């Protein structure tokens, strides 16, 4: 496999895990705009242990994941005292605090970043993404998943049904934080270098977009959202020049056509984001869509048997 595709697959796998990390709190009705903070904790935890103590990769990633999970657990208590847009701002502030601490810490290399000696191949990240995907699908199929989705719809009634709503939401933040930390650890070992600029606010925004636009009702949503938004910019890289030359051809312009400016990819990405919000406000993959597809499939099964 070419280095280009290995790189794309690694990023895709990391983004899927990261998206599931944000999906779990969002599935309980809590928007988390602090994704980059959790990812940075996992990445720097793994990078630090690998660089300073030369610990094996499973240990570095495992510890990074654990620290991010515990952080998620601990900050959930003050965070969940806030609601709505204030919760979003609080999680955002959390990520900024993490970035600020790392930037001012000599141990973590400050603005210079840390280089990570141990390298992992692309298939490690892909296997991890597959395991995480199966895990989240399993989680959503349990009663725990049911209570998460119920808390998302109506906290008061969920509480009256006997669910510890706060406990479910805290668990969502903790498990989600651990998954985002796992994404960070994989990132550190896949790219062998971490710097705090790669865990900026835009990263938090993008991963939340993957989840919200992919759909928050089923575990298919983050998978679809992360895949779509990771592959689209890459697809546009080849599609856009072709599009430009065909437009020029239609317009009758002769001669070689220069490739369009790279920023056009982000213009189209932005326009598509808005289009998706208008056309699929509940996300690309909704509950009813999954229901309809599986219903049709079970019908054809019956037809085949008859």
């Amino acid at each position, binding site marked *: 496999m070419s280095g280009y595709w290995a790189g794309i697959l690694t990023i895709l796998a990391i983004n899927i895990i990261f998206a599931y990390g944000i999906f779990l709190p969002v599935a309980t009705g809590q928007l988390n705009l602090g994704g980059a903070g959790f990812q940075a904790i996992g990445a720097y935890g793994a990078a630090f242990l690998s660089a300073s103590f030369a610990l094996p990769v499973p240990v570095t990633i495992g510890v990074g994941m654990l620290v991010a999970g515990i952080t998620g657990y601990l900050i959930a208590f003050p965070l969940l005292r806030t609601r709505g847009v204030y919760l979003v701002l609080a999680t955002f502030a959390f990520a900024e605090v993490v970035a600020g601490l790392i930037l001012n810490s000599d141990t973590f290399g400050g603005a210079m970043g840390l280089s990570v000696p141990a390298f992992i191949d692309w298939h490690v990240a892909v296997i991890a993404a597959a395991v995480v995907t199966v895990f989240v699908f399993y989680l959503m199929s349990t009663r725990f998943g049911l209570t998460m989705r119920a808390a998302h719809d109506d906290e*008061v009634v969920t509480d009256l049904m006997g669910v510890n709503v706060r406990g479910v939401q805290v668990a969502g933040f903790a498990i989600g934080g651990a998954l985002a930390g796992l994404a960070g650890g994989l990132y550190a070992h896949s790219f062998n270098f971490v710097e705090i600029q790669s865990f900026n606010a835009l990263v938090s925004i993008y991963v939340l977009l993957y989840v919200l636009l992919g759909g928050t009702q089923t575990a298919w949503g983050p998978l679809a959202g992360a895949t779509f938004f990771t592959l689209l910019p890459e697809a546009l890289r080849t599609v856009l020049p072709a599009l430009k030359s065909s437009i020029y051809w239609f317009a009758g312009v002769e001669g070689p056509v220069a490739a369009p400016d790279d920023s056009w990819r982000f213009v189209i990405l932005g326009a598509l984001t808005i289009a998706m919000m208008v056309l699929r406000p509940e996300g690309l993959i909704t509950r009813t869509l999954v229901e309809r597809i599986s219903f049709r499939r079970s019908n054809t099964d019956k037809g085949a048997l008859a």
Partner: protein
Amino acid sequence: MTALMSLTNVSKNFGGLTVINDVSFDVPAGARMALIGPNGAGKTTIFNLISGVYEPSAGEIRMEGREISAIPSRNRIGLGIARSFQNIRLMPHLSVLENVMLGQQARAGSLTDMLSPLRRSKWRREAEDLLDQMGLDTFPGEVVATLPYGIRKKIEVVRALVAKPKILMLDEPAAGLNNTETANLKDFLMKIAASGVTLIVVEHDMSLVRSLCDHAVVLNFGEKIYDGPTAEVQNDPHVLEAYLGTRHAGKEATDVA
């Protein structure tokens, strides 16, 4: 009959506004009780106090002799207190079956129950069976938001029932139903009562109240003005004055509902 639940001098203030003022009544075990009164009388507030959405400002609420005001709202369904809501509060993004399975939570809160898949579980079978018995087996997988009003109303009762409550509080179960549906509902509720569940029903449909309930408590502006057999409630002078106004208005209330 002994009191399954009793309210003693219960009051509720929101700031300076007294919504419930010194209300006391007993709910005998096995009763089919109506809680009636004009709009804003405090009927739903009583339900919210019993289920723990609100804390009483004063007074005691006892369930089987035990004071429950200090018990967190989420633990009250486990004591046998389940309810439905005036405006249907089903989870719109969950299927019919999932909504009903949510009602089992008080009986299925152990870690093993929380972490085992629901598909092919005994909980799923139980929910399916109950929906079956209640004649709601047509749409178990359907997302609730897409279903007609009358069906959602019934599903909410089933969701409360699956908790196996001792007291079932229903907030306007017949609102928005036509005559046939109301008659069905009455049979449905009689069946539930016959299985030993105590009912407290907030209802404006007086003919349903008369045919379903053996006991009535009437509230007006947060105060209790009547507590006795349903048969006599419409002859009580306080009730006539406060709730029905005149005989003519009383007939209208029946007809409209």
